[in-house]
């Protein structure tokens, strides 16, 4: 019952957040100088006609009201510039499917590699393995994504000719996935290591050892389970950021995903696309955080809600 109440409250808050984001973005976007049709080679007359056609000549507050009422009906409008006339919802679903292909793979590899290396590093603290992993993860965390992307491209495809330069569904997906996953992997390594070290110092593990359990049981049954709790809290933001943060990977390797609409929609003032992408990304972040909080509670009953 308590959980249910908490969930209802959280969902309500999430909707409120989304509403606030939609409102802020809408008005900010209209504050930007220029309009969607400024780059068009058309006479002032046609431009005025286009603006009138989409209702952009009306006061911003009226446009806002109309957008909201359409949104409630599930209508995101049509793109003005990037893919003229196509429904925004269609563009987003189509390109996000591509983003998902690299995103999911990046997520899975980040979680597996990150947690495994983090555990090894924590369990073999101050040994050579630990030092190597720590140095590598520190470097990974301090290098900007596009530098990693270009370095991979030069080394693996230009110099060694192992992988294709641009994205495809097979081998061409390897480099975008690495680019996307590297930062989170390194972050997960550090997080898991710190958390393992903390758990290893706790009294209950000494009790387990005193009872004569084998070292294997101590670590795999008792230590790991508790040390993964802080990692779970990070998984929500991680999923959201990997699925929405593919801009660099997608633009360097020419992946036809949603990331490329990320900035181009803003610079070309494609209002409906900006709104669509913003709403999509924010809902993803909000939902992930929600799922994560509930999961957190399920894993660790000591935590009281709110």
């Amino acid at each position, binding site marked *: 019952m308590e959980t249910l109440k908490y969930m209802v409250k959280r969902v309500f808050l999430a909707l409120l957040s989304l509403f606030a984001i939609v409102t802020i973005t809408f008005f900010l976007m209209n504050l930007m100088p220029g309009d969607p049709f400024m780059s068009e080679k058309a006479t002032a007359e046609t431009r005025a006609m286009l603006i009138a056609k989409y209702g952009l000549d009306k006061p911003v507050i009226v446009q806002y009201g109309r957008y909201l009422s359409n949104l409630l009906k599930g209508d995101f409008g049509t793109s003005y510039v990037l893919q003229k006339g196509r429904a925004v919802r269609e563009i987003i679903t189509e390109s996000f499917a591509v983003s998902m292909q690299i995103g999911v793979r990046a997520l899975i590899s980040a979680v597996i590699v990150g947690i495994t290396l983090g555990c090894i590093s924590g369990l073999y603290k101050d040994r050579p393995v630990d030092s190597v992993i720590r140095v590598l993860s520190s470097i990974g965390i*301090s290098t*900007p994504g596009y530098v990693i992307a270009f370095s991979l491209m030069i080394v693996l495809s230009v110099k060694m000719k192992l992988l294709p330069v641009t994205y495809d569904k097979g081998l061409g997906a390897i480099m975008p996935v690495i680019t996307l996953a590297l930062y989170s992997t390194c972050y997960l390594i550090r997080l898991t290591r710190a958390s393992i070290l903390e758990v290893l110092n706790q009294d209950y593990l000494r009790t387990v050892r005193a009872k004569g359990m084998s070292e294997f049981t101590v670590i795999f049954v008792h230590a790991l389970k508790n040390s993964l709790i802080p990692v779970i809290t990070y998984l929500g933001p991680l999923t959201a950021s990997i699925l929405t943060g593919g801009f660099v990977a997608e633009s360097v390797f020419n992946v036809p995903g949603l990331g490329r609409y990320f900035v181009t929609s803003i610079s070309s003032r494609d209002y409906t696309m900006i709104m669509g992408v913003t709403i999509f990304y924010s809902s993803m972040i909000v939902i992930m955080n929600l799922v994560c909080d509930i999961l957190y509670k399920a894993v660790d009953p000591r935590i009281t809600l709110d």
Partner: protein
Amino acid sequence: MKIKDFLMHSSLSHDDFTPLAEGYFGEENLDTEEVGYWKASWRRLKRNKIAMVALFLIIILFLFAFVGPMLSPYTYDQQIRGHEAMFPCVQHPFGTDRLGRDLMVRCMIGTRISMIVGMVSAVIVMIIGSIYGAISGLIGGRVDIIMMRVVDIIYSVPEILMIVVIKMVIGDSIEKLATNVKMFVGLQKIGTGLIAIFIVYGLLYWVGMARIVRGQILQLKSFEYVTAAKALGCSRARLIKQHLLPNCVGQLVATVMLQIPSAIFTEAFLSYLGIGVSAPMASLGSLTSEALNGFSSYPYRVIFPALLISLIILSFNLFGDGLRDALDPKMKK
């Protein structure tokens, strides 16, 4: 007279009042020197080798960025005829770019810009975040709930998207301000792009700090000394300024230190999108992203600035980690 009488009758002799000889207590350490918070922290920090190496690196980078350009025979926007697109050599240790500008000076200026971006943003974040968090935590109740919901909302905004939108909105108006209003002409020298980044930081990035400070304040609030201060009629503003914030300064400093690399990272990303500092100014981000086009033929143009970014971020991260452990020994279990 009275004291003398007293001494006469008591069993104490004058010798009892002379200081003890050194080493009287043997090996036992009776160090009674008072050690303040900062001194104790500094001692703990000094023992952390990684943090000290990082601190040394930060100092070197500072000298490179702020003293280096003065020692160099070139300036960052000087185009040297006949020296176009040179590989690293004795004259130009980092080589030159397509327009014949010395890359070492440009890297120095870039490091300077990146460090300024990092530190100014961190200070902005600290000021806004700590005041907001302190107010929210101290007042509590409904005010706290509303203030924290605002934080939650800002937290779930896709930040990069917001940065780009806000930057386009305010970048333009700052540009107008700088060209039209006499008072703000100076802004143009710093570059409108940079100011926009600072504003974006002021608007979006303080939320993490606000959460941390609020958590700390909630803990401190229940301490007796706060009740005592309240009983003596201390105002809320004074309570925050004099009693609460100074007690979470350790957390504050450490978080600010870790904020610096994140700001530098963001700046680099914005430069990659082409909306960072404006030419001919250079930041490490803009130097790297400009050079990416000719990466395979002129790799050195990317390698030096990219290496510097990594070095700055790495040293600030490591130093920040060490600082957090040193300033807040309770946190380290």
